[in-house]
C-alpha cells in the first residue's frame, strides 16, 4: 500500500495572455501513494483545475510554460510525446471526471455507448465487447444494465454523474482525477456519489485526486490534503492531522470559515483578495492577508518538512524559527 504511484516534481504551467503569463501552476511538488486519495482544496482561481490538467495533459493552446517532472510508477510521463501520452497514460493509467460533467454527455448517443467509447479507443475492443464491459462498469457504479440503452435525458442528475464516473473507470486506470465531482448535485445525491467513491476505491484499490472548494466534503475521501493558494501548494499534510488542526496560516484561517452543523464555533473569514496570478508578488503570496506576517515574509518561503508526510510553505515552520 505504501508504494509511490504519482510523484510530481517542480511542475509549472503558465498560460499566455496579452497582459503577461498567468502562473496557474507555479512550482508544485507532491506525492501520492497507491490507493491513497489526495484532496486538493483552495479558493476558485488558485490553480487546482490547472494542476489536474497539467498532470493529465489536457491543455489549451495558449501555453507559455509547461515543464517539470511527473513520475507515474517511477516513469517520467512528461518525457512522452503527445501520441505516446495518449496511448500509454491518458485514460489508460489516469482518467478524469471533469467539472459539471453530468451535463457533458452527448444527448443523442446512448449512455452505454458513451461509456464504451474509451474502451474502443484505448483498448481497441470491438463494439460488442466494449459495450458488454461498459455495462459491467455501469452496474459497478450502481446503474442497472438496462440503462445502457437509454439516452442521457432519461437519467437523473445523480445517475448521469455515475455514468461519467463509469466512463472514467472503464479502462481500469490507477488514478482518477475528480474535479468538483458533486458540486452541481443535491445534498442527498452528493452523499450517494461519495458512498460510491468510498466503495470503489476500496474494491479497486484506486487512487483519487479530489479537487474541491468544499472542505467538509473533502474529508469524506481524503487520506492526504494539499492546500493551494495562488498557484502554489502551501500545505501538504495527512488528513488525520489536517482536519484536526491545520498548520499553515492560510489553511487555519480557511478552516475557521467552514461552518459545522453539529458543534458551535466562531466563524471567521479572510479579509482581502488573493493576488493576481499575472506577476504575483515575490514575497510570501499570503503575507498581505496573514495575521502572523513578520519581516521574513518579504521573501518567498520554501516548504518546510516537520514530519515525513507534512510540508508547510511558511517561515513560521523554518528550523531556525521566527527571528
Amino acid at each position, binding site marked *: 500500500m505504501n508504494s509511490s504511484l504519482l510523484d510530481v516534481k517542480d511542475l509549472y504551467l503558465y498560460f499566455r495572455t496579452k497582459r503577461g503569463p498567468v502562473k496557474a501552476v507555479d512550482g508544485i511538488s507532491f506525492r501520492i501513494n497507491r490507493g491513497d*486519495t489526495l484532496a486538493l482544496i483552495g*479558493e*476558485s482561481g488558485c490553480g487546482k483545475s490547472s494542476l489536474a490538467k497539467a498532470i493529465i495533459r489536457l491543455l489549451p493552446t495558449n501555453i507559455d510554460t509547461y515543464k517539470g517532472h511527473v513520475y507515474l510508477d517511477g516513469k517520467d510521463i512528461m518525457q512522452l510525446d503527445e501520441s505516446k501520452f495518449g496511448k500509454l497514460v491518458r485514460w489508460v493509467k489516469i482518467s478524469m471526471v471533469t467539472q459539471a460533467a453530468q451535463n457533458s454527455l452527448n444527448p443523442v448517443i446512448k449512455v452505454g455507448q458513451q461509456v464504451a467509447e474509451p474502451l474502443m479507443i484505448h483498448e481497441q475492443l470491438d463494439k460488442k465487447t466494449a459495450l458488454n464491459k461498459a455495462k459491467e462498469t455501469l452496474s459497478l457504479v450502481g446503474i442497472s444494465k438496462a440503462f445502457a440503452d437509454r439516452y442521457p435525458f432519461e437519467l*437523473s442528475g*445523480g445517475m448521469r454523474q455515475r455514468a461519467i464516473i463509469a466512463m472514467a473507470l472503464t479502462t481500469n486506470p490507477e488514478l482518477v482525477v475528480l474535479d468538483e465531482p458533486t458540486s452541481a448535485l*443535491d*445534498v*442527498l*445525491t*452528493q*452523499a*450517494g456519489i*461519495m*458512498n460510491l467513491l*468510498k*466503495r470503489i476505491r476500496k474494491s479497486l484499490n484506486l487512487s483519487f485526486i479530489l479537487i474541491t*472548494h*468544499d*472542505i*467538509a*466534503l*473533502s*474529508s*469524506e*475521501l*481524503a*487520506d492526504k490534503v494539499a492546500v493551494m493558494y495562488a498557484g502554489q501548494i502551501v500545505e501538504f499534510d495527512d*488528513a*488525520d492531522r*489536517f*482536519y*484536526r488542526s491545520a498548520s499553515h496560516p492560510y489553511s487555519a*484561517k*480557511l*478552516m475557521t*470559515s*467552514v*461552518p*459545522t*452543523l*453539529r*458543534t*458551535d464555533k466562531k*466563524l*471567521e*473569514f*479572510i479579509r482581502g*483578495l488573493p493576488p493576481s496570478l499575472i506577476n504575483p508578488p515575490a514575497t510570501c503570496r499570503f503575507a498581505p492577508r496573514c495575521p502572523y506576517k513578520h519581516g521574513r515574509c518579504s521573501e518567498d518561503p520554501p516548504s518546510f518538512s516537520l514530519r515525513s508526510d507534512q510540508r508547510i510553505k511558511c517561515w513560521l515552520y523554518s528550523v531556525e524559527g521566527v527571528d
Partner: protein
Amino acid sequence: MIETSINVLLSVANLRKWFELRKGIFGKALYVKAVDDVSFKLNKGEAVSLVGESGSGKTTLGKTILGLYKPTSGEIIFDGKELWNSKSNDLMHYHQETGLVQQDPFGALPPFMSIQRVLTEPLAVHKIRSSSEKNERVHKALEEVRLTPVDDFVNKYPHMLSGGQQQRLVIARAMILDPKMIIADEPVSMLDASVRIEILTLLKDLQDKHDLSVVYITHDLSTTRYFSEWIFIMYAGKIVEKARTKELLRNSLHPYTQALLKTIPDPDPDNRFKPRDIPPGEPPNLVNPPEGCRFHPRCIYAMAGMCNQKEPPEFEVEKDHFASCWLYG
C-alpha cells in the same frame, strides 16, 4: 383571515402555486404543484432559512412571496395588508418594501451598467428623481455593504469586481429602497468558503441593524446554524418541518429532516471510513406526487394504510416545533 400579532411581518396561509402544464379542455388539466399548501409566519427582524433540495419548490415559494408570481390560491399578508386583494392591490409599494438577492451575482447584474446606474435603477422605477437624494442613497447603500471608498466604486462596472464584491453590490441594490424584508435565494452557493461567511455575516449585520426580516433560501444546512433564527424544511412542494434553528438541529422530528442531517459532513478525518445512510429513491415528480405523505415511498418509518393514504397535517409536537408526519399524530 389568519390572526396576526404586532410582531409578525409576513404571514402566509395555505399558499399554492401550481404551474399549468396542459390545459384541461379535452381531458385532465395537468399542473406542476411547485408550492402546495404552505403556511408560515415570519417575525419582524428575524431570519428564516428555507431549506430543501432543488425542485422542492423553495425558489418558487420565494418568488411567490415577493409578488413575482401570482399565487394559485392562499393568502399572503405583509405588514397587515393582504397582497393580491383587489381592494388594496398595491404591488408597487410592496416591491419597495421587499428586496431580492439572487444566486448568481454576475448573472444578476447587467454588464453594461455602471455601479451608479445599477443602484439608481430601482430609485428611478420607484419615482425618486431628485439627483441629490439619489446620490445620497447610492452612497449610503455602498457604505452599508462596505464597498468603500465609495467614490472608487461608483463608476466601475460589474466585471471589474470580484465575486464577493459583486454579491455585495446585489445586496446593496436589494437594500437601496430601505425594505422591511429581504429574500436571499442561495446568495452564497456560487462563492468560496471564506467569501461565503463574509457575505452571510454582512447579511446578518444588516438584519440586526435595520430590523430586517430575511428569508434565506438554501440547500446548505450547515450555514443555517449561524445565520438564521428559524429553519423551515421543504420537501416536494411542502414545508414538512418548522422549528427554531437550534431546536431543529438538536431534535429533528421529520424523517426527511433526519435523513438530510445525517448526510451532511462536518470536516472530520474519520468521515472517510464511514459510508452514510441515504434514503432510497429520489424526490417525486410534482405533477403527480404520491398519495398521502409525499415522503412515504422513501421513508423507513412509513406505516402502510396510513402514510400512503392520508396526507399528514401539521402537528405542533413541541412548542414552536411543527412536523407534518403521522408519527406525531
